[in-house]
């Protein structure tokens, strides 16, 4: 379980970094999305992995913290997902507008060499 998730985070990061280093704006958008998946999973994993222990308190009134997964990374990731959507949208629009102004979808606004 741990190994799988660690590998997944690594592969997502690697793919994201590769795309972020590419010259086309669209590659950048996809790359940042992949990176944000990786980062969200990484933050979540800081609370360690727990199955079937969602931090929703039961009705019995016996709330032992050890029975629940760490809610704090989840709260952090939740806002990160929404903000990630906003920044992806902003990036996309900036790139579209830049493409309209520069006639190029290269990240520098013009083809290199």
């Amino acid at each position, binding site marked *: 379980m741990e190994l799988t998730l660690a590998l997944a985070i690594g592969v997502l990061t690697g793919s994201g970094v590769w795309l972020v280093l590419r010259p086309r704006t669209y590659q950048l958008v*996809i790359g940042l999305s*992949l990176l944000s998946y990786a980062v969200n999973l990484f933050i979540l994993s800081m609370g360690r992995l727990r199955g079937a222990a969602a931090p929703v308190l039961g009705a019995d009134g016996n709330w032992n913290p050890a029975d629940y997964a760490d809610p*704090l990374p989840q709260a952090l990731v939740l806002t990160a997902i929404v903000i990630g959507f906003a920044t992806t949208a902003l990036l996309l629009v900036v790139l579209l507008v830049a493409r309209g102004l520069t006639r190029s979808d290269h990240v520098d606004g013009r083809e*290199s060499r």
Partner: protein
Amino acid sequence: MEFYALLLIIGLPFLAGMTAVLLPSDSRAPATWLAGLTTAACLASTIWLYPAVSSGGAVRHRIEWVPSLGLDFTLRMDGFAWIFTFLITGIGLLVVIYTRYYISPEDPVRRFYLFFLGFMGSMLGVVLSGNLILLVVFWELTSIFSFLLIGYWHHNQAARDGARMALTITAMGGLALLAGVLVVGHIVGSYDLEVVLASGDTIRDHPLYVTALLLILLGALTKSAQFPFHFWLPNAMAAPTPVSAFLHSATLVKAGVFLLARLWPVLSGTPEWFTILGLAGMASLVLGAYLAMFQQDLKGLLAYSTISHLGLITLLLSLGSPLAAVAAIFHMLNHATFKASLFMAAGIIDHEAGTRDLRRLSGLFRYMPITGTLVMVASAAMAGVPLLNGFLSKEMFFAEAIETHADSWVDTIAPYAAVLGSALAVTYSIRLIHSIFLGAPPPESFPREPHEPPFWMRFPVGFLVIACLVVGIFPGLTIGPFLHVAVSSVLGAETPEYSLAVWHGFTLALGMSVIALIAGTLLYLVAGDYLERSESAPIFGRIQGQRLFERATVAVSWRWARLIEEVLGTRRLQPQMRLLVAAAIAAGAIPVVASGLGFAGSVGEFDFAFAGLWCVGMVCAVAAAHQAKFHRLAALALLGGTGLVTCVTFVWLSAPDLAATQLVVEIVTTVLILLGLRWLPKRSESLVDPEGLAARMRRLRDLSLAVVAGVGMTALSYAVLVSAAPESIADFFVEKAYSEGGGRNVVNVILVDFRGFDTMGEITVLGIVAVTIFALLRRFRPAPDTIERPEQQRIQRSYDEADPDREAGATAAEYLYVPSVIMQWMFPVVIVLAAYLFLRGHDAPGGGFVAGVAMAAGFILQYMAAGTIWVEDRLRILPVLWIGGGLLIAALCGTASVLLGDPFLTSYFRYVDLPILGKMPLASATVFDLGVFTLVVGATVLILIAIAHQSIRRLRAARLEGGRQVEEQQQWS
């Protein structure tokens, strides 16, 4: 009461300066009156405060600023500060009167008085600060205002250069001073001036004493234009003359020696203090006087003379004896008096004769006898002629120079240097008088016919010269008591017996005065003609600190900067990203290398289903990375695949809230990117040239970076995952979620209650992003190759047009007929779903974020089903209002608790019975969550619609000439 007077003295100049800006630009008289009355009010308050300090006490008041850092706004006026305040406001008033006649109508008067008053306020701040940090703040303010004043005539290259040089030198000194003060604060444990003054022994015995001393001296010596930092002062002479009279005689340059005297009880008396200050003072004294002789510019001569006189004061302070300190303080006052009058007289001469060049000026006495007389008296005071104030302090200086203070060669040569410096002062003073006023008028006429200035322009000069005379003849009756108050406030119990009499009998000091007078006169008789013709000073004229300064400036700010830019700088994004990624990897690797990474720990069961899931996820990610260049749609679909796997992982790992949010966000992201795809250029593998070797190498390098980053993250995550969880604050949230937050969904309670303020910030960001996107797209200009309809639409349209029975666009509508009916029917369902997600949020997975995005997805479905025009004919969505409303609800909800006396965003909750819905938890946090929901709906819808709208705009734009963008009113905003 006293405190308010102090506050008035400091605050009024700044206030008046800001008022001056509001005056009309050509208002000379009101601006002058404003400045004059302000200065007069400060002067009056100062005089009124005298009884409070004359008994030896200090007026003091502390306003807490950042007490945790030891930083307070403390004002403190003792005798020494009083006499400086009096000097600043008194000479300030005279300078304002003088300026009224000096500044020409073409010059912007408002600006002058703004800077002037600002400078005066900062200078008073330096003098009256009771906290060392506050003092440094005002100190730097004086540097900035002096920069602005020197550069007042900024159309003049020399003024700009001089201002820049003065700022560079004095501000660097100020930074050193700040560091020095911080060291002192570290030693003493307080920045309060009184505490520092009381802990002299602690400071002097501390191992950091030399560091603190060096840094503080650096600040003081740069400010007072002492060797080797003296060169900025002559270059600052490009300033208007009132500025020179105020800043470069009485105030700014005195700040350095003021600080030395202020900290004299704490820092002086050590060999380091004696040697450094003694050498700097002696070098400035002799070198300044020597260079002053050779100046051809009248103000240049006065500037070098100032360096020399400040050197004298520095030398006196270096000696470490209380009597020398008395002489130093006395000379500070005397020098301010005669030098300010001389500067103002120089301005009068420049004004009336049209030049300040000593070679061109001659025989002016017959044109302006009164001014001539005044200048002669002031110059005599500068030279140290008996019966004038300069003589008194100079004689005290001689007497102190003979005394042995420390057994070193510096002390041995001090008397000789003193006599030499004074003799040279006599020479340049005679030269000043002789070449300007005596002799025949020059054969070529003056640029203007010289005449006496208006009475009130000459008044300040006359007033100061009379002060020189009165103090020089009756020192004990006039300056005596004030000097005593000032001196005893610095020296305290160490205050020595001293006498201010004109005649002390035939002493060695008197002999030295006589020698200096005679030698200086003889030197002028011998070398006067040579001085008149010389272009630059021999030998020492070649030591040009200025040249070094310029070289250093060019090297640092031009050559090195260019070099770094060439080596490291690039305007291309990819190298920057590479650097960024490499730096991030390094930042992650350094702690790992330093402390190692442990992989030993408890490992959970290996789950084949989970592994299989992620096999799909990883393949999707890698394939997306591979396809993103040529197959955008495929890459988007693959990205969605990874997103879904992530979503399932969240469910797997007990994070249902995340899973729900991820799912709806995944949908809107995909829709968003789909909408954007249409504006990107065609790119096909067959159209691209095969890559060269360099490009392959680049790709290989990027690939290795990506692999390193991936492997690093894997190792890091694995190490974290197998290690035991540390003590976390999560327990607190779980335990208190219900009892204090009133909700059982801990994640939601954290978001809307415990960390509500963070969430508030986050939704604000979301709103800002949405509005930014909206603004960016208002003037969107598509690239020319994307203006035309997409190929698929063209084919459909041509099919429609070929058949006269078909409407345009019918094919597309038919394609989507079934899905669009379903989607329209789904709209109410989506609304109910969003409401459900929202309402259950506090107790079960759900909440404002996920409900908001779901609601937005419902809206966008309608757009997709029926087209923009159809939807907007039937539905008025005002997303900007949703955003504003959401933010308002959240903020009001937070403010409500403030009104009830609790901190911002405190929540209340109780259970209420609602009809139909049953027993419901109702917390005020739910209202906050409603704000979150509303804003998220607004922001998401605004983003999506803004992009979707471009398709209709594009058609209108294309219809009008050649794709030129047309402003259109957008009804949905």
